[in-house]
């Protein structure tokens, strides 16, 4: 258990289920949010960007936590699978952070009158984007996987201080950015007709992140284990 081969086999069974659930949730959530959710009385229809912006931002941060935890596991227990997961989180997280930044910027223009302000929330999110790019670049800078993984693991762990800063930035500093509308400890400040499609989209993004992580990890495992018997058997099977 925990070996790359074991993961490749078991994730093969999960893959179709995760794919179906993720794509259905995203489709339902997007149509619900774009067409059926009521128009916001203050922001008009531009608020519909929330159904992309909030889920993408949540995954951008959650993905970083997955990467940092995988990094810690790979450093402490030298687990190969954790190294691969850590490496694969970086491009996915970078993509999600990019969506978060672009959607926020395009939401800011009609709402705040500007695409960008250098306030705490936006700047710390930009730093998150650079951290992901940094992990990708650092990995590519090394010839061998072992040193690359070690260096990236340290960078991921150090960078994780940014996550609580992003999360609480709207409370610690004055910001144009509105505070969270979904709260865990008290009632959400969002109307139920808007909240429902948002929750569907958040669930959809989480499932889609899982799908992407499975696919990227499987692909990387195949490449790394290309000289093992089991991968050769897979290739031979594919040739027939």
């Amino acid at each position, binding site marked *: 258990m925990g070996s790359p081969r074991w993961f490749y086999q078991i994730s093969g069974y999960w893959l179709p289920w995760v794919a179906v659930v993720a794509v259905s949730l995203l489709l339902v959530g*997007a149509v619900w949010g*774009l*067409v*059926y*959710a*009521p*128009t916001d009385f203050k922001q*008009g*229809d*531009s608020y*519909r*960007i929330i159904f*992309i*912006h909030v889920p*993408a931002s949540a995954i951008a941060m959650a993905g970083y936590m997955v990467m940092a935890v995988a990094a810690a596991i790979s450093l402490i227990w030298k687990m190969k699978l954790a190294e691969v997961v850590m490496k694969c989180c970086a*491009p*996915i997280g970078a*993509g999600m952070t*990019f*969506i978060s930044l*672009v*959607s926020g910027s*395009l*939401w800011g*223009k*009609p709402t705040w009158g500007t695409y960008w302000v250098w306030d705490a929330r936006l700047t710390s999110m930009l730093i998150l984007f650079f951290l992901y790019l940094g992990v990708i670049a650092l990995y590519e800078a090394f010839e061998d996987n072992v040193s690359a993984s070690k260096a990236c693991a340290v960078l991921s762990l150090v960078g994780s201080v940014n996550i609580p800063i992003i999360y609480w930035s709207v409370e610690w500093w004055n910001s144009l950015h509105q505070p969270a509308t979904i709260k865990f400890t008290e009632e959400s400040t969002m109307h139920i007709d808007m909240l429902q499609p948002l929750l569907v989209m958040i669930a959809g993004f989480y499932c*889609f992140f899982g*799908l*992407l992580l499975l*696919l*990227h990890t*499987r*692909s990387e495992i*195949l*490449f790394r284990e*290309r000289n093992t018997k089991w*991968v*050769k058997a897979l*290739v*031979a099977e*594919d*040739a027939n």
Partner: protein
Amino acid sequence: MQFDSFSALMAMGGHGIYVWLVYGISFVVLLGLLVAPLRRDQQFFKQQKMLMRREQHAKQQVETGS
């Protein structure tokens, strides 16, 4: 349904360009992240099959002594 017509859905009360750009860009990024590993796998199997064939060919040549 919040919109009376397709053009109203596109216009989004004047904010259509922002909303649709966000959904379009997000779709492209997510699709790219989805397709990348699939294409990589395809390439991988193609390459490994070629290597396997080459190895087999080399083995045969040694066996026949040519």
